[in-house]
């Protein structure tokens, strides 16, 4: 399944931040949705701003246009405001992307658990994200931090509890 680019992607002005406030707003919104859907398609959970500039999302080789560093920062900042992105360091060079919110991931995981009649049992995080049983599930290969957050979301709902034993974490579903 190849990624479907929006029409704007082949539209050169899309790669320059527009001065008009209205247009700019629309442009940023389009960039946000493009970046999120690209990450979703590629299953990316962490982004590096330097690398992002070279990735096909922000660099359209066909029309020889790429988004400048500053604009990428603006787009990322916009995503952060929406709650889809979190900076990993103060320099804002690496970030976490959440194209699905922790609650949504939690819901997916919990659905799988209850569909398989595995409530009331204990899992290791590795088992959930890399185990044979979850092969083919959407949360297979989910990065650990994301998994942990979704489990925390489930924990606040009282559907799960995270267990920490010295060298590793596990979770029990209810």
């Amino acid at each position, binding site marked *: 399944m190849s990624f479907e680019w929006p029409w704007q992607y082949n539209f050169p002005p899309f790669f320059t931040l527009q001065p008009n406030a209205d247009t700019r707003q629309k442009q940023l919104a389009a960039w946000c949705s493009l970046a999120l859907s690209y990450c979703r398609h590629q299953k990316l959970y962490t982004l590096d701003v330097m690398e992002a500039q070279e990735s096909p999302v922000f660099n359209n080789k066909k029309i020889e246009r790429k988004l400048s560093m500053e604009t990428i920062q603006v787009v990322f900042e916009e995503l952060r405001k929406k709650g889809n992105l979190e900076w990993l360091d103060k320099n804002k060079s690496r970030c976490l992307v959440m194209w699905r919110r922790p609650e949504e991931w939690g819901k997916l995981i919990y659905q799988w658990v209850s569909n398989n009649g595995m409530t009331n*049992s204990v899992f*290791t995080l*590795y088992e959930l994200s890399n185990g044979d049983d979850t092969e083919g599930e959407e949360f297979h290969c989910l990065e650990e931090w994301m998994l942990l957050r979704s489990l925390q979301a489930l924990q606040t709902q009282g559907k799960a*509890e995270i267990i920490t034993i010295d060298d*590793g974490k596990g979770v*029990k579903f*209810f």
Partner: protein
Amino acid sequence: MGNLFGKKKQTRVTEHDKAILQLKQQRDKLRQYQKRLNLHLDKERLLAKQLLKEGKKDKALLLLKKKRYQDQLLDKTENQISNLERMVQDLEFAQIERKVIDGLKVGNECLKKMHEVMSVEEVERIMDETQDAIEYQRQIDEMLTGSLSQEDEDAVLAELEAITQADVELPEVPSDELPEAPEARKEKPERERERPRKKAEREVLAV
């Protein structure tokens, strides 16, 4: 808040859960080890092939020996994993069994309490009283129906008398003869006579 949270955690995650988690963690580690070994084996197989192509038979042989050893290791890990998994399943099943026993205990206690409420003497007394009441009711019924039945009988007899009196006159026998079936012709008057009697009977029944 933290204290509250800690308390909640204590209530819901048991020692069993922790034990299971530890076992599972161990299993995960073995799985990872297995993956690594598998990758290694594939690489070495390729390398051995290449060495053979290059004519370095001794080295290839050495490599294969190493590979064989790792194969054995892989088997051992497989066994260990299955051991761990069996242990986990046993633990989980023991937990389920404990829950079943708990359930049975609660049910048993409940049943005991119910039995305390209903003692055998009490039931006997109630049953006796019910029997007495039924007997009493039957007597009343008998008395009532007995007094009525005599009158009823008289009325029925009188009505029967009246009906039989009225039906003595028979309807006329049809005069024209039927050409076919001579036996049927003979039977016909008989049936004609029978009919009024039946009618009378029916009316008696209806009363």
